[in-house]
């Protein structure tokens, strides 16, 4: 499977995401934000963590206008798989590909720690290798990870099973403890925790591997269906 990771100015987890998917045996290319087209053969686009445009104004607010984002939107419309991690999640909500908004952590401080999460929905492109309601542990590292959805929207995304992960003890004040969501169609997801940092036991955990494996397994299944 071919992954593509977009490099925005200020991205700093781009190479980590690349390393993670490559270490799982898949190919990955870095895509420059000023490009207007995605490489022909990519199957999944990752918007990586970091501080695109220094997080100035609001996290993700400026990066969403990068030239490549038009192509990413088109890719998503055509059912391509898009994953936003941390800053990538912020870019996806700013560009309207995912619901909600990300505000400053309730403590107003940056938080870097191992975080326990619950897999709320395991019937998705991104989570099919986990058990329903499984408790997993992934690193978080963010200053603006406080996810906001108004109640009405919450009811809607809950009904649509769009919530993928919730925090076991809400570290940042997120509405309903939400840590990761997908779009209604189910091909775009964003999450604040860093699965790409949890694919190697020597770094403290491997609970992130299944996210990539879920995507890969979904993709392979889709390939078989098609032909």
């Amino acid at each position, binding site marked *: 499977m071919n992954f593509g990771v977009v490099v925005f100015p200020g991205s700093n987890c781009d190479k980590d995401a690349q390393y993670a998917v490559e270490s799982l045996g898949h190919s990955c290319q870095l895509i420059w934000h000023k490009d207007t087209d995605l490489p022909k053969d990519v199957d999944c686009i990752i918007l990586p963590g970091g501080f695109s445009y220094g997080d100035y*104004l*609001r996290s993700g*607010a*400026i990066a969403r*206008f990068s030239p490549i984002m038009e192509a990413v939107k088109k890719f998503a419309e055509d059912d391509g798989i898009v994953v936003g991690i941390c800053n990538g999640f912020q870019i996806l*909500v*700013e560009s309207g590909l995912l619901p*909600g*908004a990300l*505000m*400053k*952590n*309730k*403590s*107003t401080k940056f938080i870097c720690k191992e975080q326990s999460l619950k897999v709320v929905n395991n019937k998705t492109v991104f989570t099919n290798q986990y058990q329903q309601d499984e408790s997993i542990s992934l690193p978080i590292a963010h200053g603006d990870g*406080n996810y*906001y959805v*108004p109640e009405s929207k919450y009811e809607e995304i809950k009904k649509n099973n769009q919530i993928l992960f919730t925090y076991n003890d809400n570290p940042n*004040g997120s509405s309903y403890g939400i840590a990761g969501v997908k779009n209604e169609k189910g091909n775009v997801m964003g999450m604040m925790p860093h699965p790409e940092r949890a694919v190697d036991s020597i770094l403290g955990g491997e609970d992130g591997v299944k996210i990539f494996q879920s995507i890969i397994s979904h993709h392979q299944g889709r390939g078989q269906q098609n032909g």
Partner: protein
Amino acid sequence: MYNGKVTVQYRNGILDPQAQAIHRAVKSLGYDSVQEVEQRKEFFLKLDCASKDQANKELDEICQKLLANPAIEDYEYTVEEE
């Protein structure tokens, strides 16, 4: 030349973590009189537009696209000729 002034603030009902943190800090400094803290952002833009209408139009677009996030923020703006 036109001077545009934009104010952006959180929508009603959305808790602003920073304003809350400031409120807590003010209290911990002993200022118990303070009942409420809110904050907002102001932007000042100088626009070299052909007309005031044009400046108004451009500024409104800039607010919508960039300066405010409609999911959580409201904005207002004014334009004056320099």
